[in-house]
């Protein structure tokens, strides 16, 4: 098997092209926001990154449930891959959020429900990764990560609601502004681009997971 099938390569090219177009539109083509100025452009990368992170973790959840039911190691591989990629997207989301927050809110961090929940998501899936690296037996590793994957994700809605209550019992939630069509389609464009990137990274990462599994088997056999 060569370093990539034709489908993989075209997926990669498509992702790259879409990202280039998306970034160009977001940075240059779309006019700056009336209220927030140029800093608002960060939303075109921040929001898609956040959505993809969440999608990635949702997939971890689904794969974890599937694994616990069917005990097929393929589900475990997909789960682990999605978790790793999700962490990358989450870190990007948080960093971009902080970069956007400093000029607009005046602070790098605030205990806003979404921001707080995102940070907690990061902690959960870093823990997921750490658990995997410390578990030596492949079946145990898959089983325990699946458990953590299920519990971690099930906790997210509860966390989100708790933090929302925490923040809004004393202050009313801000009303969302209506979104101009320009902003909306630039957002959609970048969302599509990020989704292609996720798909491409998933294909690569799953293949790596398969290779690692094979390596483990061979090392056990040759030991």
């Amino acid at each position, binding site marked *: 098997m060569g*370093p990539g099938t034709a489908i993989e390569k075209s997926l990669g090219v498509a992702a790259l092209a879409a*990202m280039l177009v998306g*970034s160009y539109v*977001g*940075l240059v083509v779309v006019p*700056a926001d009336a209220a*927030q*100025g*140029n*800093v608002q*452009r*960060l939303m075109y*990368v*921040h929001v898609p*990154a956040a959505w993809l992170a969440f999608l990635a973790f949702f997939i971890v959840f689904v794969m974890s449930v599937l694994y616990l039911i069917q005990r097929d190691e393929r589900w475990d591989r997909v789960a682990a891959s999605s978790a790793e*990629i999700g962490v*990358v997207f989450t*870190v*990007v989301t948080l*960093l*971009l959020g902080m*970069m*956007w927050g*400093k*000029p*607009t809110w*005046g602070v790098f961090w605030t205990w806003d429900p979404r921001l707080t929940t995102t940070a907690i998501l990061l902690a959960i899936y870093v823990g997921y990764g750490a658990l995997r690296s410390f578990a030596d037996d492949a079946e145990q590793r898959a089983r325990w990560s699946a458990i953590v994957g299920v519990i971690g994700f099930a906790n997210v809605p509860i966390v989100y609601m708790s933090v929302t209550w925490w923040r809004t019992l004393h202050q009313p939630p801000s009303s969302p502004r209506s979104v101009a069509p320009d902003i909306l389609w630039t957002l959609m464009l970048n969302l599509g681009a990020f989704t292609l*990137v996720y798909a*491409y*990274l998933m294909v*690569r*990462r799953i*293949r*790596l997971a398969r*290779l*690692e599994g*094979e*390596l483990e*088997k*061979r*090392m*056990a*056999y*040759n030991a």
Partner: protein
Amino acid sequence: MRKWNVVGVVYVLALILLWFYTGRVEMDNRGFVVAGYGLTWAALLWYAFRLESRERTTARAVDSLEVAGTGD
């Protein structure tokens, strides 16, 4: 050693950037935005290339070992 140098450089760069941004808080700062996009690209590209190199290393290791026996 190379790996640690990269991490060290990134860390120092991050501190410098942090100091820089903490001092200049203008809404219309386009540099901010470009840096943000740059960060996104850098992270995604870095991860993609890391995947590639991990894949190569693992594939090499797999090839160097005997296939696991049948009836596993």
